[in-house]
């Protein structure tokens, strides 16, 4: 047996091991926390909060670099692409909503996007956050694939934007329901629109949990907001520089 040949393949083998180990760990923890959440319904037991915390603790305890972790699990993030494609099904099923309420939907998308960008800009300026970081914060309320494209275009850091997008999603999905419950709203349209604009995919999946129609509106608004933001990104770049 040629051991030297085996040694040359050692890095490749290690990469496979790393992928398997961290992927299994991530999926396993997600699965466990999902079942745990079904038993104990608290806001902090949702998989999107408890799983990353456990993963951070494990990577810190095992002295693993995040670059190693992400090399093993980036294929999971890549699945956000087909997940975006999957939104075609609920949108197609309820396409009549878009035809009926296109005016309200476009008002919501335009106003919500401007509010989101402006609030991030002014709040960041108020606490004295510097330029690249401030730019990375701007596209935080739209879904990750769009946000990373825009962040790169206007001069932010796409990787940081992805993180801010996810934090926004976690917060919006967890507390959006509480906020909307407290507001005197009369239409499902407004609930769906604010979930979709403020908390993108995370908000949409939360909205689906609440009500099928609210979820559909959220998904629709999320996609429209993403496209609208990509279109105005060049304009934004001109204004900001």
């Amino acid at each position, binding site marked *: 047996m040629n051991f030297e040949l085996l040694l040359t393949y050692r890095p490749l083998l290690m990469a496979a091991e790393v992928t398997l180990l961290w992927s299994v760990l991530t*999926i396993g923890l997600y699965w466990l926390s999902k079942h745990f959440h079904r038993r104990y319904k608290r806001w902090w037991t949702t998989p999107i909060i408890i799983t990353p915390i456990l993963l951070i603790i494990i990577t810190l305890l095992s002295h693993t670099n995040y670059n190693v972790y992400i090399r093993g699990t980036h294929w999971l993030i890549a699945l956000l692409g087909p997940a975006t494609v999957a939104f075609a099904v609920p949108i197609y099923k309820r396409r009549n909503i878009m035809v009926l309420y296109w005016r309200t939907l476009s008002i919501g998308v335009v106003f919500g996007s401007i509010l989101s960008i402006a609030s991030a800009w002014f709040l960041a300026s108020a606490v004295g956050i510097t330029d690249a970081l401030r730019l990375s914060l701007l596209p935080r309320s739209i879904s990750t694939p769009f946000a990373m494209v825009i962040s790169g275009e206007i001069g932010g850091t796409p990787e940081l934007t992805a993180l801010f997008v996810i934090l926004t999603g976690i917060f919006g999905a967890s507390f959006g329901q509480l906020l909307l419950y407290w507001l005197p709203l009369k239409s499902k349209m407004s609930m769906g629109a604010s979930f979709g604009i403020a908390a993108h995919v995370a908000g949409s999946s939360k909205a689906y949990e609440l009500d099928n129609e609210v979820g559909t509106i959220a998904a629709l608004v999320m996609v429209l907001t993403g496209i609208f933001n990509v279109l105005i990104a060049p304009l934004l770049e001109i204004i900001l520089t």
Partner: protein
Amino acid sequence: MLPRKFAMLSHTFKKLLVFLKRTFHKSRILQIALITALWFIAQEISLWSHLPIPGGVIGLFLVLILLYFNLLSIRSLALGAEWFLAEMLLFFIPAVPAVLNHQEFFGWMGLKILAIIILGTIIVIIGTAIIVDFSFYKLEKLSKREMKS
């Protein structure tokens, strides 16, 4: 003799197609594979066309067009799409430990950013909900009046 044989052959072929269709409509894994394949194609289109639109969104519109022109039935996607939407949160999780790469966020800076995200999200949720609710009822009244006149 030959036409009859051909007819029989085409009959079996049709039966086979129906069988394949039925298995496809029932199989979640095949549908997940189909959605992923469509996304791959869309990704290629996105790269090739140099549009600033991500592949996922091009794929979404591709599927909408296919569905609209009856080139694809909703039943051959529904189960797979359902799975993707239900497990969406899993795909976000690996991005969160990225904070470990940014030691500067463990401290004052991190709190500032968290405050911006939380406050900003509250502003967006409340603002959007109010304006959409308002415009929904305004436009509803408008469309009713339009119908009357």
